[in-house]
């Protein structure tokens, strides 16, 4: 049952072959059994889920049909969930009960989906390995000594281990695509503004975008349609109609022009490159053509990101001050002490590092050299992307430079860790939609193929991914022990 697609599950539910309660119970049992070895789920909402499932079953019997009625899911713990702890992977919010639902949560609720629990994540989404979580690292189902990637590592591992048919995630510099790649699932980061950020605890507001982890592009298409769309509560969400992503999945790829980013292939590990070349062969066989394109400024995306993201986060995280919610230090001796110790003790090492980086680059005297400069180069990168999309329909390349690395391997070296996102950050800087899908293995560990499209071209990305998944079966592979 846990290996069925969302579409299959919906049809079984519709035929009455299975109830949502049974489905929910099935996944809850899997979580109970398998999660201790993965640490992917940090809050389980079993009783509520079963209640919601029972309601979904009654609604179905009554003839109601919402798009995801009765389908279980797991939310990244960055999304506020009314009445349920929303920790953002941080000690700071370990005791925080959100009093409202994020728009993504509310939309999935009204689509009929059933929340099983909340997924582990890097603290405040700052990390590429899920090791910065206050709740401990998530383990990769493919090799539990290895990281699942981050920051949405819990969501990725949960979908990879079949603990839920799908999960939500957020992507600020690759936090959906990178863990999707490292755990062998499909992850979609939509166009900036496509999905509301309301209720998503902000890391870097101009880069954050909510998205989805699923086992296939077809499943992701069903979910994305529900979460996408304009939201009056988010001034940066865009009022562009949401297409039926599922309807265009079968569009033939004949004539699709794929751009190969020179910068994505320079220095690429040979085994990784081989996987990408194999994938390109498949695309050519499906009727696509490939052309080489170059974005000369793209290599600067990592330093640009590590100015812009910390700058925004240093300000976004100022609200965690021990006054209205969240962690407060014991016995503050005065106001300054309250601030410094609540924040010093409530935030972990990496979060503090990013806040300090951001504080530094925004300071008078450094602002122009760092922040403003980064914003200018951000424009250069964006303009180069847009110029490339004048020539091609999609850009294709690797999602990550390497497969999942061992837990602990990079924790003491932030810069090396940051370079994990070298292929993914560009799309965030330019606000472009991007997707990662499984395309093979290096050292028996899954690797991802990344597709990047022009703004609001999610349908094209899902179409291209789906067509690839029609002729490959990487996405059907399950890690040993999770079949």
């Amino acid at each position, binding site marked *: 049952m846990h290996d069925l697609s969302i579409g299959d599950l919906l049809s079984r539910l519709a035929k009455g072959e299975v109830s949502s309660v049974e489905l929910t119970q099935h996944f809850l049992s899997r979580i109970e059994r398998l999660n201790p070895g993965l640490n992917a789920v940090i809050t389980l909402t079993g009783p509520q889920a079963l209640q919601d499932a029972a309601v979904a079953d009654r609604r179905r019997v009554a003839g109601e049909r919402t798009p995801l009625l009765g389908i279980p899911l797991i939310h990244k713990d960055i999304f506020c969930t009314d009445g349920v702890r929303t920790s*953002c992977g941080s000690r700071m919010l370990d005791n925080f009960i959100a*009093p409202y639902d994020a728009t993504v949560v509310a939309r999935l609720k009204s689509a009929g989906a059933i929340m099983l629990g909340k997924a582990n994540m890097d603290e405040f989404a700052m990390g590429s390995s899920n090791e910065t979580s206050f709740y401990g690292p998530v383990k990769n189902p493919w090799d539990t000594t290895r990281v699942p990637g981050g920051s949405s590592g819990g969501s990725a591992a949960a979908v990879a281990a079949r603990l839920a048919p799908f999960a939500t995630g957020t992507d600020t510099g690759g936090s959906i695509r990178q863990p999707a790649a490292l755990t062998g699932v499909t992850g979609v980061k939509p166009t900036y503004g496509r999905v509301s950020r309301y209720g998503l*605890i902000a890391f870097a507001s*101009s880069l954050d975008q909510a998205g989805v982890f699923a086992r296939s592009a077809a499943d992701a298409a069903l979910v994305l349609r529900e979460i996408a769309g304009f939201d009056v509560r988010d001034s*940066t969400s865009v009022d562009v109609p949401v297409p039926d992503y599922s309807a265009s999945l079968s569009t033939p790829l004949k004539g699709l022009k794929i751009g190969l980013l020179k910068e994505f292939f320079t220095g690429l590990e040979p085994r990784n490159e081989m996987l990408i070349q194999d994938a390109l062969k498949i695309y050519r066989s499906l009727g696509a053509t490939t052309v080489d394109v170059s974005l000369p400024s793209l290599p600067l995306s990592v330093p640009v990101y590590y100015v812009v993201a910390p700058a925004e986060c240093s*300000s976004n995280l*100022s609200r965690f001050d021990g006054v*209205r919610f969240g962690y407060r230090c014991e016995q503050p001796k005065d106001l300054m002490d309250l601030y410094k110790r609540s924040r010093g003790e409530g935030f972990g090492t990496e979060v503090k590092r990013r806040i300090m980086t951001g504080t530094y680059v925004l300071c008078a005297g450094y602002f122009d050299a760092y922040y403003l400069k980064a914003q200018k180069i951000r424009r250069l990168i964006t303009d180069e992307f847009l110029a490339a999309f004048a020539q091609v329909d999609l850009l294709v390349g690797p999602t990550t430079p390497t497969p999942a690395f061992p837990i602990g391997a990079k924790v003491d070296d932030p810069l090396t860790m940051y370079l994990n996102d070298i292929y993914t950050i560009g799309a965030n800087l330019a606000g472009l939609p991007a997707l990662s899908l499984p395309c093979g293995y290096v050292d028996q560990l899954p690797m991802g193929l990344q597709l990047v499209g022009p703004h609001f071209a999610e349908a094209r990305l899902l179409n291209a991914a789906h067509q690839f998944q029609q002729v490959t079966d990487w996405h059907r592979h399950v890690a040993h022990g999770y079949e």
Partner: protein
Amino acid sequence: MSEWETVIGLEIHAQLATRSKIFSAAATAYGAPPNTQASLVDLAYPGVLPVLNAEVVRMAVKFGLAIGAQVARRSVFARKNYFYPDLPKGYQISQYELPVVGRGKIQVMLEDGSRKTIGITRAHLEEDAGKSLHEGLANASGIDLNRAGTPLLEIVSEPDMRSAKEAVAYMKKIHTLVRYLNICDGNMQEGSFRCDANVSVRILGQEKFGTRAEIKNLNSFRFVEKAINYEVARQIDLLESGAKVFQETRLYDSDKNETRSMRSKEEANDYRYFPDPDLLPVEINEHYIQAVKNTLPELPDDKAARFARDFGLSTYDAGVLSTSRDLGDYFEAIVNPAGVVPPLAGAVPPAAVNTEYAKLAANWVMGELSSALNREALDISAARVTAVALNGLLLRIVDQTISGKIAKEVFGAMWLHGQSADSIIALQGLTQITDTSTIEGVVDTVIAANPKQLADYRAGKDKLFGFFVGQVMKVTEGKANPGQLNELLKAKLARSESGGA
């Protein structure tokens, strides 16, 4: 001893009179129980986002047009980062590099009647902070975030003022303007209109500005004047004793009438401004500006000029009567020929503009009416005597039904009982005696009853004329027409004089 020159610039914070907050749909009403008007956005809950209130933009544009400023076609909200318990996000959303209103100017009238133009550097939109309360908490403060997120228009002047009085005149003018535009209620007790004053002194003739101190949060015109005067004296004392003025933030203590350094703001802050990534640039097009322009009311200077021109008022009177729209409307309801009330009756020709009547009305509005309002601290809109009623009273003066003196009594009664002038005059029998023979009779009786005073008067004690007037008024209960009485009395006393020669 050198001669010092004071240099003042003001940053006025005008709370915009919107129903909801600048970035949230919580109410802005004053005086609600703590934190009952603080929404998730105002509390800076994790995950929430600001959404800009259309009304604040319209109000800012209105202000910009009223001071002849360039309205920015594109303005940007920025974050001003600092930690303070009344600032829930740890940053204030404000405008930094691209404010909505650019350079403008305004003219103020100084005490000597001369005019001065004060430059306005910019006006930008921002959110207000909450309040820290200290009462009833041992060594702790309580934070009320009801005010957090209330829209403010910060109006920054050039350092163009040279005295505390000029600063007050400027602040009053802005106060008048924002109320004219209906963008701020101007309530200073509630903090809806307040300012920070940047004060420095320099030797007269010196070009370079002195080091300035910023006096925070002045919320009355009187405090602005006193605080600046104190601060100027303090700075001059320092400089004359060879010490230096420090650039710092100071607080005015109205109980002690002094300014003191604010410890909390002592450390040099680095606000780390950057564009707020949760908000997009605000774009304003020509069409929008034109639409706002069409809603602009007659502005104070225009109204004053019209009053002076059309009603023949002095510049001073015209200025006073145009300090608020309601006051001007009140005055105009009395005198405007096109208004509800027929301007004049009786002997006075219904001229399009009767400047004499206008002057009478102006005197009454600025005199009796204003003092009655002040006595009860009422706004003109709450006056117990309406313009229609006051016009009714003034008409009785003009047609000589009552004297000006009696009219004041009638006004008092109108204010208390809310009746019309005519009914009070009738009820209390206050109609003026204008029948010459009646007055003459009383005069004769009084003269006959006071032979000694008559003799003294005739002997040259002119002052006794007033005695006779008083006696007649006593008998007539003040109702004798003063003009007629004077004439008659003069004649009678004179006749006797001539008779005795």
